[in-house]
């Protein structure tokens, strides 16, 4: 399979009055053509910033993409001019869907206008042509009576419907890749399931490559082929979805799994949680960033950052410890 997107050593930080926030610290991963990659991790661990850096949507200043390469097909997105990014990449090659459908649509423009805009800009469609395509798109994402709804404003749609519209907008120009930034977090479970089904269906129908950001491991299991676990701006574990669920090897992944509610667990047992909070990103960690919360912590963890190493085919972790024995690997 050909590699579509190859991110290498991506570093992004923000210059704030309190100091430099190290949001993404040397992240590398790749996405195959037609593949689905899930990025998991708790809030504030750099998932969104990584994706926004890829599309260069980080506000600069205060943000800064310090180093790295983002190889998309045969070009480095970090070296493209802003104009090229805007006219050739965003929306046309790589589209993005955001977390909150209630605020991601412009409240004063009709759905029709927002849907036809990318068509007008990227594909130079005529108004009737764009209108036809907009109706097709709304049909594709399952909005009933699409012709009539084109003239409606976002406030006339429900949350789930708006997220469908957002997806339709993202798909307008037939992008090759879709970045979904927690698209189901703001929706209730039934709608969440519908949206996931929709995305799966679209992937089959139009062969999208997808990066799906989430902090819901249940969603990951149902959707992704490959998973990246992020913590404090580092990738801590990377594996195929089956491998990760059967054989999680990083203490953080283990802790995340343990925090999942299970139907077969005793009803009055408490849900497990990870003690402490994610580290302050203003301070560059001297050792493993997870060391303060890790139950397997050893002496070396506090002083040296573990490099990401392959432990078996297609499975790599950044940890000094073998969680099976509790000793150094």
């Amino acid at each position, binding site marked *: 399979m050909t590699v579509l997107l190859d991110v290498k050593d991506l570093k992004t930080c923000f210059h704030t009055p309190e100091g430099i926030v190290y949001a993404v610290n040397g992240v590398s991963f790749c996405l195959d053509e037609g593949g689905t990659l899930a990025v998991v991790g708790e809030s504030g661990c750099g998932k969104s910033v990584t994706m926004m850096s890829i599309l260069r949507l980080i506000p600069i200043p205060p943000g800064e993409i310090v180093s790295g390469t983002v190889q998309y097909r045969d070009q480095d997105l970090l070296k493209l001019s802003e104009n090229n990014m805007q006219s050739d990449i*965003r929306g046309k090659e790589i589209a993005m869907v955001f977390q909150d459908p209630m605020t991601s649509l412009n409240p004063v423009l009709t759905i029709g206008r927002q849907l036809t805009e990318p068509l007008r*800009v990227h594909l130079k469609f005529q108004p009737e042509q764009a209108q036809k395509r907009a109706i097709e798109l709304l049909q594709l994402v399952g909005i009933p009576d699409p012709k009539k709804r084109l003239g409606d404003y976002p406030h006339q749609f429900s949350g789930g419907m708006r997220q469908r519209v957002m997806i339709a907008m993202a798909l307008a120009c037939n992008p090759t890749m879709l970045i979904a930034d927690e698209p189901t977090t703001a929706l209730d479970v039934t709608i969440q399931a519908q949206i996931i089904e929709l995305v799966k269906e679209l992937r089959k129908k139009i062969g999208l490559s997808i990066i799906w950001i989430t902090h819901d491991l249940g969603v990951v299991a149902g959707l992704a082929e490959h998973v990246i676990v992020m913590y404090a701006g580092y990738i801590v574990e990377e594996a195929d979805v089956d491998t990760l669920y059967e054989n999680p090897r990083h203490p953080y992944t283990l802790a995340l799994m343990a925090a999942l509610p299970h139907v077969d667990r005793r009803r009055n047992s408490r849900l497990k949680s990870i003690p402490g909070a994610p580290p302050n990103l203003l301070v560059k960690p001297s050792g493993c960033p997870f060391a303060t919360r890790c139950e397997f912590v050893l002496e070396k963890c506090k002083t040296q950052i573990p490099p990401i190493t392959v432990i078996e085919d297609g499975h790599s972790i950044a940890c000094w410890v073998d969680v099976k024995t509790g000793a150094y690997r």
Partner: protein
Amino acid sequence: MTVATPSPNVQSIKPIILDELEAPPLPLSKMAWLKFRRHKMALVGVGILIVIILYCTLGGVIFSEKYANYNDTGIALQPPSQVHPFGTDVIGRDILARTVYGGQISLLIGLTAVMLETTLGILIGAASGYFGGLVDNLLMRFTEAILIIPQIFLLLVMAKFFAGNIPNITILGREFSGSVVVIIAIIGLTSWPYLARIVRAEFLTLKESEFVLAARATGTSTPDIIFRHILPNSIAPIVVSATLGVANAITLEAYISFLGLGVRPPTATWGNMLEGAYSYIENAYWLWLFPGLLILLIVLSINFVGDGLRDALDPRSRAV
């Protein structure tokens, strides 16, 4: 078989229509109108405005401009009569005809000055708010520099400086004193700072919103984001400010013209009709009463409309 006739009591209760219960939220424009309608004074204001506009346009059909500018010192300072319902002025011109043509010029000045003001205010405010940083700093310091100088003072200096430098111009077969253009330009050029600050504040909040990020992610260009995404969202305060700006421009024109630095005769405006009337305050009331009354009415009614619009377009007052 007999059909049971409903008792009269039941009939008087309005049946609930399902559509009404499940009606989708109202479109924004309709909601704004429903809220505007509640504002009685705003409706009165709209009424008065329509009457004044009709007065100025239909009046122009009845009287020719030549008649309005025709002077005959033999009939100077005549009180209102059958022939001259509003009396005549110091050189014997018919005041009724002059209020008609003066009104046209005053409205023209009000509207075009506001167009200029709004354009400048939006461009400067938008650039400042959207780009931030150095651009914002430079533009805002410039705006503040203009705000520091009292507007009237600035107007008088500019009026004095430009007066007479601009030849008369002819538009649509009518000749305007070049001073009309000067007044429009200087009112427009000195009124934009407040609007620019309003627009900047709107842009500062809106540019951080999710939908702007979403628009950027679909590859929308910066000008499109500014004018097609953010500007329509900040239209409410701009409309209100522009409405009130019309009244302000009319008052300012009257002010400068009253001081003799505004629009030059023979072109009439409500402002320059007042010029010189102050020497006759006691013995020729008709000189100042009619143009003064018209200025008062139009400024009041525009302010009422502006208040109504402010309530109608404010998204925070949702109840209808």
